[in-house]
């Protein structure tokens, strides 16, 4: 069994890896009127969890299994058609790398940083970080699943002034599905790179491109 405390440190929203400036598509969804309340947040988060959440969780799990990070990074590129989201994934990957190397120094992280000085895809860095922290593939997948819904929930609290208790209750209601997604992701990663899921969300891709073009916005993505 891996260290539960290490998982908490890595999954904590206060882990300084740049996530606080990103809404995971929630800012665009709020502006478009698709997220207006807790119910809208819940279906947004549920959709994100089962699409890019699953895909990213599996990439992270695969990295934590020690699969070739370059092949995983290429797989992540192919699964991210939006150039805005590829840029975000690499920027967040680079920011996470900085925090990870300071927190859990490891040769594997150093090697990945040297290979991708401008940032590897964030899930690949996250899986590698999990490994450095003594965590396993499933832990990495759980971390991504949680982050996939936690980010938008925090953002919507700021954007809509949504009651933070309601937002947290949304996360609690999604717990069984987060578990499912994390386990599915880890199971897929166990079968190797060709078995990785590629679930995607048309609106997240489209609105990421729109959001990147806004002159005024609160969140970087």
């Amino acid at each position, binding site marked *: 069994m891996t260290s539960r405390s290490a998982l908490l440190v890595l999954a904590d929203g206060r882990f*300084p890896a740049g996530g*606080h400036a990103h809404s995971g598509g929630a800012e665009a969804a709020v502006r478009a009127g698709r997220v207006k309340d807790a119910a809208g947040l819940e279906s947004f988060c549920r959709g994100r969890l089962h699409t890019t959440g699953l895909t990213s969780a599996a990439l992270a799990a695969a990295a934590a299994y020690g699969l070739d990070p370059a092949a995983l990074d290429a797989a992540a590129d192919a699964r991210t058609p939006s150039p805005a989201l590829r840029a975000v994934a690499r920027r967040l990957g680079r920011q996470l790398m900085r925090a990870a190397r300071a927190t859990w120094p490891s040769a594997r992280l150093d090697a990945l940083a040297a290979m991708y000085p401008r940032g590897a895809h964030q899930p690949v860095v996250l899986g590698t970080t999990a490994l450095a922290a003594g965590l396993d593939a499933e832990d990495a997948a759980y971390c991504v699943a949680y982050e996939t819904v936690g980010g938008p929930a925090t953002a919507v609290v700021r954007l809509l002034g949504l009651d933070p208790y309601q937002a947290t209750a949304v996360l609690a209601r999604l717990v069984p599905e987060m578990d499912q997604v994390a386990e599915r992701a880890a199971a897929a990663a166990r079968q190797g790179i060709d078995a990785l899921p590629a679930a995607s969300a048309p609106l997240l891709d489209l609105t990421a491109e729109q959001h990147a073009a806004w002159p005024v916005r609160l*969140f970087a993505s």
Partner: protein
Amino acid sequence: MHLDHGHTSHGAISADARRPDGTRRALRIGLGGPVGSGKTATVAALCRVLRDTLSLAVVTNDIYTREDAEFLLRNAVLPPERIQAVETGACPHTAIRDDISANLEAVEDLEDTVGPLDLILVESGGDNLTATFSKGLVDAQIFVIDVAGGDDIPRKGGPGVTTADLLVINKTDLAPHVGSDLARMARDAGEQRGELPVAFTSLRAEDGIAPVADWVRAQLGAWTA
């Protein structure tokens, strides 16, 4: 094939005084303070007086726009490649204190793209009196308040007023118009700050930025000594 990203050297991970190639990195000075106190105008004025003798760059942290970066660009205080905007996700103090990763990235990118720099000014988004910079991000910080914000601000203290390496009390030219008592502000600031310096500025005056520029030069002297 990847069209998105070039591969260059890989960046430092902390506040080390040396860059990965062993050269000394730029001195980083943070400028914080409440909305409207004149942070961006102070940055612009500093750039104008320092740019001829120093290689410098600016990182802005806007709350929800790139307005500060664009103000600096519009006023052509520095070439565009020397100005970088960081987006802060509605929490400007987080980006300069709790999670400084995006700012460190911006700082490193500036040094990578425009070459060796002497000085990088990191301007925070206008926030409140509690915002201060992490020591992992800047080597020294300036807190900018103004006389129009109320002459009781120095008395009230707060981390910015009390601990900043330099407190700038800006817009002194407005003091008679808004009924602010400069002597009282100086006295209160002294009580809060002990030995730490205070500069009174009016950026409308000829060379009004001089006390701040002098302080920056002294910091730089100590950094490169």
